[in-house]
């Protein structure tokens, strides 16, 4: 189940996708069970009831899945509403056929009407479900989410940085120049299309530029320890994972203290995994945590979009330090 499934709003799902077929199976059988449970909860009677219903429903289900897989391309060429109509007609035809054949063979209880209604209800529920799911997973929405993510640098940082640069203009024009260059680079990356993985070396360079701007205004209150001697420079990472975390570390760890504090960053490769650990001093009086949670949720979401369950992000808060640990699979650039 990935976002590349082409599940546009108002489109049918891909009936040749195993995941979709599995979902249909589970939902239909779940509804059968629910219907049977409505009648009785006595295990033996329930069993009988289920077998009874299954005798008709399972053949309908299997035939439907086969027919849908076969008609998949044709259905997707139709307009959504036409495809829905075709789908319902198809389902009713299968139901009638199976009933006609099955009732004759098995002498099953209940009239055709019962199964027609059941088929219509299930078809309706499934169409509704896949429509909602399609909306939730639509590429447009994912893109909007990623775009929203990109704009998340704190306005606080921008204005304070410009203020710091302005303060350098008269006395130290060269440092002001460099700071503006760093700021420009940082914003160039922030505003770029950041949906592709990028080499970790670039991410580290960006983080260093960001930190040099922060050093400008925080002076020796900000201390940085890099431990990246075992970092493979060609490893790939989603862009802007490190910088927002450092921004959090500065905002929550360094700015609220008048004495100097150290942010330490460790990046290393362990077998097939990349480990990123970021630690900052921290005072647990928690008044500024909304921004932090938001940044973490965003990074978690992006890691999931890129690596699914293979990546993880974890935070550990102790009495005086706060640590973020990220694990992502080791992917080399150019492979």
């Amino acid at each position: 189940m990935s976002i590349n499934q082409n599940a546009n709003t108002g489109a049918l799902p891909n009936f040749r996708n195993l995941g979709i077929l599995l979902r249909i199976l589970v939902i239909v059988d779940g509804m059968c069970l629910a219907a049977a449970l409505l009648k009785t909860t006595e295990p033996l009677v329930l069993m009988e009831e289920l077998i009874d219903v299954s005798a008709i429903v399972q053949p309908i289900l299997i035939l439907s899945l086969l027919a849908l897989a076969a008609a998949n391309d044709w259905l997707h060429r139709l307009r959504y509403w036409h495809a829905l109509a075709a789908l319902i007609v198809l389902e009713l035809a299968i139901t009638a056929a199976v009933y006609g054949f099955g009732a004759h063979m098995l002498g099953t209880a209940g009239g055709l009407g019962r199964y027609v209604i059941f088929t219509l209800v299930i078809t309706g529920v499934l169409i509704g479900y896949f429509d909602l799911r399609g909306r939730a997973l639509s590429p447009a929405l994912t893109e909007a989410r990623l775009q929203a993510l990109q704009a998340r640098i704190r306005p606080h940082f921008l204005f304070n940085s410009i203020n710091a640069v302005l303060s350098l203009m008269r006395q130290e024009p060269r440092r002001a120049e460099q700071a503006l260059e760093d700021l420009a680079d940082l914003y160039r990356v922030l505003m770029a299309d950041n949906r592709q993985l990028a080499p970790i070396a670039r991410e580290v360079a960006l983080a260093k530029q960001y930190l040099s701007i922060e050093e400008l205004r925080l002076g020796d209150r900000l201390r940085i320890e890099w431990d990246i001697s075992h970092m493979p420079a060609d490893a790939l990472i989603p862009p802007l994972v490190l910088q927002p975390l450092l921004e959090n570390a500065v905002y929550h760890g360094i700015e609220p203290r008048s004495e100097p504090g150290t942010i330490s960053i460790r990046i290393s490769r362990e077998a097939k995994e990349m480990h990123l650990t970021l630690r900052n001093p921290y005072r647990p009086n928690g008044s500024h945590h909304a921004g932090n949670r938001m940044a973490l949720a965003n990074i978690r979401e992006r890691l999931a979009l890129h690596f699914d369950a293979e990546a993880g992000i974890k935070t550990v808060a102790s009495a005086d330090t706060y640590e973020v640990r990220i694990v992502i699979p080791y992917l080399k650039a150019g492979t």
Partner: protein
Amino acid sequence: MTAAEQALRVLVVDDEAPARNRLRDLLADCAVKMPLEIAGEAATGRQALEMLPACEADVVLLDIRMPDMDGIETAQHIQKFDDPPVVIFTTAYDAYALKAFEVHAIDYLLKPIRLSRLSEALARVRSFAPLKPDVLREMKPDARSHLSVNERGRIHLIPVPEIVFLKAELKYVTVRTAEREFLLEESLARLEQEFFGRFVRVHRNCLVAKDAIRGFERALDADGEGHWVVVLNNVAEKIDVSRRQQHIVRELGRIL
């Protein structure tokens, strides 16, 4: 020389050195057009409070986001001076504070600060209305880190964690720390609300810091009946627990 012609003395308060430099440059530019002097520079709210009695500032340019004690709280303590200077807040971005400034028509400067905005604000300074304690309290929903009292023209800061108990007496609230006591002109009910969770009300007129409670013991009334008293760490005085508040003995459960 009339008051209007006297040089305006400005204290700059900001934790970031570049921000202070920038203000110094801008104030120097303003000084060309109006009589102006830099009364001093402070990197923290506490430092500003210490400098104020001696530096005789008319105006304080006060950054809002600072470590240890933020600008809003610093302004609250500044108001305790007998003749407090005018406070103009400076901030890079603080949606919450900005909204409050607009609502209460408080002057503020947005960083990066423009020369024209700064000189306008300084030119109008003498007509500013003083900040109201209620307004400042509303702007800062979090509890203060310190209480403050004016002692012979100086502001004495009392770190909240050092407070053992607060006792209402007539017009004042007595603030007791391990070392000494202070008289505070604030209401006990409001303090209870502000520091909710840190103090427990043991009596109609007394809040005791939970951390300072060693335990409870029985004491005899004048008429021979018993009641509970609070035994404190670091302070010998024992505090009566009123009949109404007896349930806290069970809740905190440290019977000696």
